[in-house]
Structures are given as structure tokens and as C-alpha cells.
């Protein structure tokens, strides 16, 4: 069992219900293949640095989980076929730090101003 981080970019023009379905779908994939979801972060709608397939913005969803190589294959298979996603990335970690959230602090500071 190893620790991984997985981030998705969903398309900009999706409804909130569809976004929840996407979040649920990948959560289920991890839990079905004997994995363990530690944390799910929603970064919300962010500007992309460059245009990706006509889109300027995207919804970011971030998973932190513990699993084996079986689940990674399963996630990769599904996210390549998935039409509502723009990009995805998985990174392996020896240790996960669940405390620091780089994208949540920004929003809180902006609201105060």
C-alpha cells in the first residue's frame, strides 16, 4: 500500500449535480478496489494558465488516498475515456501532509479584503 494524490480538471460548463457525480464516481473506484480515501479537496473554479481544448477555466478536484497499483490502472482507464474531464495527474508520496491546503487559504484572504 502506498500513498497517492490525484487531481482532476473537469470542464467549465458542468452543473453542480454532474460535478458531484464525478466526485462520487472516482471515490467509489478507489474504495471498490480495496483503497482508502483519506481526504477530498474541492479547489473550485480556477483559471487555467493556457487554453486547454477551448476552455479557459476548470473545476479542480483533489484526492488523497492509500491504495495499490490496481486502483491506479482503474482510475487511468476511466479518466481517459471520460468526456467531462480535461486533465488528470497522479503523484506518489512517501508521506502525505493533510494539514496544508494551498488553495483554500487564498479564497479566505480574498473574501476578507
Amino acid at each position, binding site marked *: 500500500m502506498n500513498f497517492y494524490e490525484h*487531481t482532476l*480538471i473537469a470542464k467549465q460548463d458542468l452543473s453542480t449535480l454532474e460535478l458531484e457525480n464525478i466526485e462520487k464516481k472516482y471515490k467509489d473506484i478507489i474504495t471498490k478496489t480495496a483503497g482508502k480515501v483519506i481526504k477530498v479537496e474541492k479547489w473550485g473554479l*480556477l483559471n*487555467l*494558465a*493556457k487554453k*486547454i481544448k477551448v476552455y479557459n477555466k*476548470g473545476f*479542480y478536484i483533489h484526492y488523497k488516498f492509500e491504495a495499490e497499483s490496481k486502483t491506479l490502472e482503474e482510475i487511468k482507464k476511466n479518466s481517459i475515456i471520460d468526456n467531462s474531464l*480535461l*486533465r488528470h*495527474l497522479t*503523484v506518489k508520496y512517501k508521506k502525505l501532509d493533510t494539514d*496544508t491546503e*494551498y*488553495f483554500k487559504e487564498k479564497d479566505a484572504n480574498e473574501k476578507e479584503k
Partner: protein
Amino acid sequence: MKRKNKKFNKRPQNPLNKLSLFQKSDSRFSKKCPLSGKDAPIIDYKNVKLLKRYVSDTDKIMPSRITSVSQNKQRKLTSEIKKAKILGLI
């Protein structure tokens, strides 16, 4: 009578002595690596604020001879910057 020891008094450098306007003065240049040592920032692809400092205006990775990052950390930086570029964060 005491004579002032003028030899060791550092005189301020005349800006006209420089070869070019963009040449940095010697005192300002630091050779220490800003990313290693105690309470150094974490290099991670989510830490976009930090990574943007080491990228030029045209999205190129800055060479370590300019930023004075150590070789070990420079290797980490490049891999994290490339990850951030895949996700469209930089």
C-alpha cells in the same frame, strides 16, 4: 591625536563605476540557496506562489546560476514545475 583609520572604512560605491546599469552590486548578491536550510518552503506542485518565482515571463524555468538554488533542489523544482504545467496552474 587619534587618527581615523580610513583604510578600513568602506566607501559607498560610485554607481558610475559599473560597467552596465544591470550589473548587481557585490554586497547584494547572496550565494546561499533560498530553498535549503532551516524552515525552508516546501517545494510542491500545489505551492504555485513559490514556483512562479522560479519561472520567467515566458514560462521558462530559471537557471540556478541566476537564482542560486542548490543542485539538489533545482532538480526537485524542475520536476514540480513540470507537474504544475500539466495541470495548467502555471
